């Protein structure tokens, strides 16, 4: 190394000429420009999506498009209600089946399991996220549907008095149905929901846990009274991020939901979702302007739905972390 330690030889550090500062300026404005460009791009996509879906909105109105219960492209009738219902039913099933398991897994991994198991278990649960959605679809069609059919029939007939779950005696379940789609979605949201639950459980102050144990609480009482109340908002937020995923999931659902644009009578019936209809009908829609526009409108509804849910989820998770920071600052 030479005797000088300044970065630019003998130049005085404070007296850099504008020309010397040029690379810094370029870097700063280049990166800012990049950020602006990304925002403009998102806005442009959003505008284009609205613009291209207007034909179908002009035909029937936004309200009728979302709430009319009739989807029949061959007659140019586009009422997306059966798709919206299918999306809601499958996502709700996913939450119902997936969240308890995800939270249980998170509690077990962070509080109850033997320490050497903790790392491997975390990795294995996270690996669920590495399986592509088309592979879940493949597995659902050829393994899950045939394997679960007798179980579904039994549940449906045994609980025949329960609305939406009961199955009349003379009927059997359709192979592909809402339940199977919901089950696959539950598996797909498990890793993200569980990971976020694990993260918020890790933020529970040690003092809270030790206080409960010192007062003579059993392990479970400590979990119920110290951990769950503290972590609940984060867990809810994680579940909602999972919901956002479930709503937008396309390929696996397309393969296992049966693709019938009607509202099923119970969860063992075939249905359709917004995302699945786009994936399925795009090929045939390409030559029909109105049909294409209806599918783009379905995409727009899907987009807005996920935006709202993700915004709510973030608000819930962030409120928690802000409060935590305040508590931390006060302590």
């Amino acid at each position, binding site marked *: 190394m030479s005797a000088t330690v300044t970065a630019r030889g003998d130049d005085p550090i404070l007296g850099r000429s504008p020309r010397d500062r040029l690379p810094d300026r370029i870097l*700063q404005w280049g990166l800012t420009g990049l950020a602006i460009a990304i925002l403009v791009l998102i806005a442009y996509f959003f505008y*284009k999506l609205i613009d291209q879906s207007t034909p179908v909105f002009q035909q029937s109105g936004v309200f009728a498009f979302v709430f009319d219960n009739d989807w029949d492209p061959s007659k140019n009738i586009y009422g997306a209600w059966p798709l919206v219902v299918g999306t809601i039913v499958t996502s709700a099933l996913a939450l119902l089946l997936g969240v308890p398991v*995800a939270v249980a897994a998170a509690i077990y991994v962070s509080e109850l399991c033997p320490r050497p198991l903790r790392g491997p278990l975390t990795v294995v*649960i996270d690996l669920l996220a590495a399986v592509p*959605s088309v*592979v879940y679809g493949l597995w659902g069609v050829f393994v899950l549907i045939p394997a679960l059919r007798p179980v579904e029939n039994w549940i449906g007939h045994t609980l025949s008095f329960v609305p939406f779950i009961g199955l009349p005696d003379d009927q059997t379940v359709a192979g592909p149905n809402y339940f199977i789609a919901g089950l696959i979605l539950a598996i797909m949201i498990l890793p993200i929901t*569980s990971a976020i639950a694990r993260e918020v459980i890790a933020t529970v102050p040690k003092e809270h846990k030790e206080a409960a144990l010192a007062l003579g609480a059993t392990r*479970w009482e400590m979990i119920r009274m110290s951990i769950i109340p503290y972590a609940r908002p984060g867990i809810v937020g994680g579940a909602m991020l999972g919901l956002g995923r479930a709503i937008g999931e*396309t390929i696996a659902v397309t393969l296992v939901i049966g693709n019938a644009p009607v509202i099923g009578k119970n969860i063992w019936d075939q249905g359709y979702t917004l995302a699945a209809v786009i994936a399925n009908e795009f090929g045939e829609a390409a030559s029909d302007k109105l049909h294409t526009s209806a599918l783009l409108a379905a995409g727009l509804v899907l987009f807005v739905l996920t935006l709202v*849910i993700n915004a709510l989820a973030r608000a819930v998770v962030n409120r928690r972390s802000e409060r935590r920071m305040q508590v931390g600052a006060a302590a």
Partner: protein
Amino acid sequence: MSALGPISTRRRLTDKTARTVVLIGAAIALIPLVLVLFYVLKRGLGAFLNVDFFTQDPSGRFLGNPGGIRSAILGTIEIVGLATIIAIPIGIGLALYLVEFGKNSLFARVVRYFVDVLSGVPSIVFGLFIYITLVVSGAISGFAGWKGSIALSLLMLPIVTRASEVVLNLVPNELREAALALGSPRWRVVARVVLPSALPGLVTGSLLAIARAAGETAPLLFTVLGAKALTLNLGDQMNSLPLQIFNDVREAQDRLVDRAWASALTLILMILILNVAARFVSRRNRFA
């Protein structure tokens, strides 16, 4: 001596029951992964071990030899490769802006918010974006591999940016200050100090984003469309592994379904390798 009485039977039973329920829940969480991997191996390994599977293209013949998946593997590598080239510099650039320049300014918060929005957008909607802007309008209309790459890069962008932001934030401020105090200009601090020290984390985030993009089908459906023959020209319709699996499943013919299982095995292996690599690199991170 002990002032603490024994825990009542009811409380002990509740504790035992609740812990068992939690254990069962955790065990249930492991079942799907085991079952998926088991069936993919069981049904896919047969065709997978055949060399022709990797050296032939799908024949498209209704009867007889359905062919292999050469064009699908190469197509996936090429499409995802281009998406990586697009998404990673932009994603890391955005993170650099947020950490080094934007910090907590209003504009930076807006950018951060929209990156979050982008990460919640369903992958099929990215496909729609590209479809309406590049496939059906403009002078360059038509399906093409590079359009699928752009759709995938949109999907990767928020993953790369968020992961990079986290690791760039982990670079100690003392390092930046030391470099600045020695007279380095800002750009040199970024290029010689911040980026090299965050490198393992940046690589990990990028690898995870690539793994995610490699498994996506929905954004490719109406941007790349699909093909059977091998083409390395990104301007043409191309084949890709997820598309190939999706189409084979929908054909519901035994031979094609066998190919789908073997393709699924191939795809999962590719993604696993990326994940393992990501984990391996993140071990070398100095600050995390």
